């Protein structure tokens, strides 16, 4: 693992809210990050269906996009979200973990552009997609 990837991984693991959601960063390198969120009854949005709340999916996607920015070779250090748009395709299947893959596909001195896709066990049908812009900050 490169130093930067190691730093980003440590940073994600030091985020109190990432810990509260049980986020697990399974891959991070070269502007790409993958985060898994295990199914948790505390994150349910409708108790009658057991489906995870969209807000929890948003929180996970935001974290994953930030991690992708920080791992980009051209990113000097930290980042913050400028804007994030989430599209919800379908409800995540209750009982299944949700995994987000984020890609920082372009970066300038000031702004990083990111896309992300979240899926559950059925990886062919996305649960949600995200597109966002992030700040590029020095160390």
């Amino acid at each position, binding site marked *: 693992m490169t130093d930067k990837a190691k730093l980003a991984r440590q940073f994600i693991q030091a985020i109190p809210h990432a*810990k509260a959601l049980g986020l697990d960063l399974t891959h991070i390198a070269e502007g790409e990050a993958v985060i898994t969120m295990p199914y948790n009854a505390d994150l349910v949005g409708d108790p009658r269906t057991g489906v995870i709340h969209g807000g929890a999916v948003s929180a996970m996607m935001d974290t994953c996009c930030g991690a992708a920015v920080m791992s980009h070779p051209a990113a000097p250090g930290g980042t913050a979200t400028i804007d994030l748009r989430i599209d*919800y395709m379908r409800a995540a299947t209750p009982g299944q973990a949700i995994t987000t893959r984020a890609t920082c596909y372009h970066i300038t001195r000031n702004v990083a552009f990111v896309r992300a896709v979240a899926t559950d066990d059925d990886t062919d049908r996305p649960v949600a997609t995200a597109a966002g812009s992030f700040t590029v900050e020095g160390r």
Partner: protein
Amino acid sequence: MTRKRPEPMQVVKQRRDAALNALVSGVPYIRFLNITFDRRGDELTGVLNFDEKLIGNPFLPAIHGGVTAAFLEVTAVITLSWSHLFERIESGDLAPEDILGDESVRFPKTIDFTIDYLRSGLPRDAYARATISRAGRRYASVRVEAWQDHHDKLYAQGSGHFLMPQDPNPES
């Protein structure tokens, strides 16, 4: 023609507060984030009660951007549900205790949601209010703004589209 005598204030308050409480406290994720709602008449203000577990950047420290996104989305969905159900609650057609048990009561589904982060979220309570720009039979468009110390200095704003729950028997 004589006007119907208004209900006693306590009856009205009790019914509305019980209905709002049933709508909000039945959702595990809203409890997880500890979001509560203040009500003045039909107007709702979401309150994100600060806790250390909401922190996203421990060095600043600042509230996690994802928490802010979730807070705005929760405020939008609850405000939309509240406005959608208000007439039925007021007419007595829907009893507060039946809200999450009634099959006809469904939450609007988020189609998309966009968040602008205007300032970093300080480690203290935050407030949000949603405005329904348009509530159609199938789709609704909602704007949300969130602030902390000063209402005119928003720390985030959002807007989203929602698919409204379809009434199973529209004629009844």
